């Protein structure tokens, strides 16, 4: 036979038990990091492509000597676009700078619309070993057209660590 109030008391016991479980659960959550043997690591990475954009902008602003005159590289690029004899000066300047930053892992390209008009270095390809991070800028010419300048360094994953490292730099 069921007595008056018995159901209410049982509900109280159940509620207290659930409360106990919740508190025990919170204790468990707080203690779990100490109990687990190997802790998972989540690495938040930074942006690397932006570093290449500073390098490219500096390259375009860098002084270069052409036929006895010091001019900016962006000017040399626009001159070399018309006068193919100046391409060698540009190539020499590219080789003086980028290998010191990226070793052999870079490509420097100039496009006139979609047509490739100048190339130095290799075309970067993303793979399991590394990641190509191309940056591009538009270089306006006097005839109101644009050249597209692209720098494409490839960063390689450092062995045993979730980090990028440029190849060829020591």
């Amino acid at each position: 036979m069921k007595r008056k109030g018995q159901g209410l008391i049982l509900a109280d016991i159940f509620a207290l038990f659930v409360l106990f479980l919740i508190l025990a659960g919170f204790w468990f959550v707080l203690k779990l990091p100490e109990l687990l043997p190997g802790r998972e690591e989540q690495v938040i990475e930074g942006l690397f492509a932006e570093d290449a954009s500073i390098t490219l902008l500096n390259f375009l602003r860098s002084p270069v000597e052409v036929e006895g005159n010091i001019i900016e590289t962006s000017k040399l690029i626009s001159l070399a676009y018309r006068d193919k004899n100046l391409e060698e000066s540009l190539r020499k300047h590219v080789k003086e700078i980028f290998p010191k930053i990226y070793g052999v892992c870079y490509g420097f390209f100039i496009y006139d619309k979609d047509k490739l008009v100048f190339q130095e270095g290799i075309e970067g390809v993303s793979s399991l070993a590394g990641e190509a991070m191309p940056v591009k800028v538009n270089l306006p010419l006097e005839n109101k057209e644009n050249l597209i300048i692209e720098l494409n360094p490839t960063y390689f994953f450092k062995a045993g660590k979730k980090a990028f490292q440029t190849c060829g730099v020591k």
Partner: protein
Amino acid sequence: MKKGSVILGEETIKMLPRIFLAGFVLFFIFLILGVYLARDVRTEELEHSLLIKRLFYDQNCFSFTDERSYPGIIDLNKFQEERLEKCAFKEKIGYRLDLKEMNGDSIKSVEVNKKITALLDFCDTQKKNFQCYQDRNFVLVEEQGERRNALLDIFVVIRDEA
């Protein structure tokens, strides 16, 4: 039977599976929550990246400024330890900046937070409580109104949080 006593009868037996089920569900909720919270979130990579951006972009650091700031152009007058300590300093981060000519000759070197940069000597050997990063950047040096090409090597040590 005493008056007011509780008989654990049919209702109690019905209650047991409910309690078991509630406990089971709660255990799994807390287990998932616990496993999620138990991970280490490593932000050293990000901190390193942010430090470099601050050095390059903040006009209070070493970037050349006239009407605007030029990231990547280094004003040699601003390339000083005291200035960089004010501009980019964090207790657990130490860094050394080596400014070099394109042929490798040193122009100037500065160190910020020497207590931490002392660990740079151990970067190739033991790295238990700290992380090391090395970057090389192509920069322009502005000195007395003239610009020349240079290289900036950045060595960063970030000590793990205690």
